[in-house]
């Protein structure tokens, strides 16, 4: 597949996106620790390069289907951090009027057709988005994010096969962060790489270093070009890692500190930052950019905090169109 190296502007904006995701999730983590969040949440800290590299290769009018670990996808697709934070805190001003929360944030007008509380639940839906693009002939593309654990759901199999036989413009992006909750990927399937499953559907499959945002971007760029040109779906596996527990109740008995440390040494943000510093593209070590993203998240939180709660009288709003 042909690949186009990203421009310097793109590299800078990708660093910015990754910093913004990290700032958002560190704040979310902090709010949770303070007991200010109802329910649970799933953080993608450590996986920023996947959401960022993939979405950087998309057009604004392209679609994504996200997962329960979707904050990064949402921000990378261009969502407003304030509306996200408001949803995270269940406010009326949030993307879903506080009805969805962390696990269901959707920015439909921005092309994010929603996080999903159901593992692999977005994959069948992605085939329909692809069908719609194909029938309406709009030249858009749909990216379906899912995890390594999702690759063992029947929905994965049925969806990739359907997209393959109809050559739907869908890119299946597997974020292999090595675990499905406590289940190590090596115990949940007897293959080396999840991308090997592409052969079962007669579509291209490849695995890239999901901590290297450029590798993710270039692989996505090629897969998107193929999909847009009518070449059908690609299964793109991004090898990555989640720094935090699966969710808040996780004692992480299933992995070692050393393993976590080893992956942290390959931090996606540090990698791109180093590269840009080496290339003389950023001078202050992107300190200004990092400060800017943190204050953007502070503003987002302020907006969310000052926003009203939904009116209980509106409980039944939006059940039906």
């Amino acid at each position, binding site marked *: 597949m042909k690949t186009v190296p990203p421009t310097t502007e793109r590299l800078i904006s990708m660093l910015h996106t990754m910093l913004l995701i990290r700032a958002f999730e560190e704040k979310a983590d902090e709010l949770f620790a303070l007991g200010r969040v109802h329910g649970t949440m799933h953080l993608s800290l450590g996986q920023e390069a996947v959401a960022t590299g993939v979405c950087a290769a998309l057009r604004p009018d392209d679609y994504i289907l996200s997962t329960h670990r979707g904050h990064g996808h949402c921000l990378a697709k261009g969502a407003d951090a304030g509306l996200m934070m408001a949803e995270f805190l269940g406010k009326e001003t949030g993307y879903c009027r506080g*009805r*969805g929360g962390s696990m269901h944030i959707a920015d439909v007008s921005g092309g994010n057709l929603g996080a999903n509380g159901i593992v692999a639940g977005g994959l069948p839906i992605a*085939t329909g988005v692809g069908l719609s693009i194909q029938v309406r002939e709009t030249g858009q593309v749909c990216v379906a994010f899912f995890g390594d654990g999702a690759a063992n759901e*029947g929905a994965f199999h049925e969806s990739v096969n*359907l997209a393959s036989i109809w050559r739907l413009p869908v890119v299946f992006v597997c974020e292999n962060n090595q675990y499905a909750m406590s289940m190590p990927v090596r115990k949940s399937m007897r293959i080396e790489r999840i991308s090997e499953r592409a052969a079962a559907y007669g579509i291209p499959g490849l695995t890239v270093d999901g901590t290297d945002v450029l590798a993710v971007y270039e692989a996505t760029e090629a897969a998107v070009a193929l999909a847009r040109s009518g070449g059908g779906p690609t299964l793109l596996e991004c090898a990555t890692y989640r720094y935090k527990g699966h969710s808040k109740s996780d004692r992480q008995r299933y992995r070692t500190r050393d393993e976590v440390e080893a992956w942290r040494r390959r931090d996606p943000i540090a990698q791109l930052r180093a590269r840009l510093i080496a290339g003389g593209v950023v001078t202050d070590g992107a300190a200004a950019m990092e400060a800017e993203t943190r204050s953007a998240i502070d503003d987002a939180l302020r907006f969310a905090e000052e926003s009203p709660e939904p009116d209980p009288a509106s409980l039944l709003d939006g059940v039906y169109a």
Partner: protein
Amino acid sequence: MTRQISYAEAIREGLREEMRADDRVVLLGEDIGVYGGAFGVTDGLLDEFGDRRVRDTPISEAAITGCAIGGAITGLRPVVEIQFMDFITLCMEQLVLQAAKIRYMFGGTAAVPMVVRTPGGSGTGAAAQHSESLEAWFAHVPGLKVVVPSTPADAKGLLVSAIRDDNPVIFIEHKLLYRTKGPVPDAPTAIPLGVADVKREGADVTVVATGVMVPRALAAAGTLAGEGISAEVIDPRTLRPLDTETLVASVRKTGRVVIVYEAVKTLGIGAEISARVAESDAFSHLTAPIIRLGGAECPIPYNRALERAAVPQEEDILAAVRRVMAA
């Protein structure tokens, strides 16, 4: 003007007219193309609309359902055929956790205009895995609409409304009704969802029946008339939303009610209708207990005589009505 056409033809007409009028309407399903559908409902639609809009799918019910959802939230109006209602058990996650909830979870920022057509019911010797009547499951789910037509005219008119509706609609057809004929208007006529139909007026007892039980209830009402019992037969037609007021008004008038349905009696639609009557002001007008006639508490057996014994028949309706009249 009306003509006599079959229930299957009426559904096909509804599909054809809506597809001609709106190219966002696409069909998805197993063997709906060249084969024309397991019950022949989509026969000829592939020839007229082509394989871009009439899609034969692999045997992947969950993906087909999700495919309709994804199409619906991005500009299509998909109509899915699930070959037998039993197989909808493979679509529950996509239908109930996704289609039914997306609009609400997303704060009203998306709509899911899709229809799932599927044939339910027993009577064809298809046995336990091809004879389910699961409509009550869907009527329990906010976000879904549930339609159960009993005549060709209702089938066409309600299908047209279902396709034009901006919400996910489960449209439940009946295998034994496909060949039954009835008058259907020439001109396209949409029948609104959520409105019950009084199929026969009466004064002494209200018989609420759905699907294939409607013709059985009407036949029984005819016999009862000969015995001087005036039975009012009402078909809710839509189970969610359920037109409670029409049902309750009839019970207020008659003071007696028998609810007839094919699904397993326990927690079938009759349970909800009984409960709504019992919590309504019609309660004080009741002169007899509320009687439900539902399917037996067992899977549908293969043997013809057992299969017949497993669901209400005309004679069961007659016996039940005579019982409430005696109470």
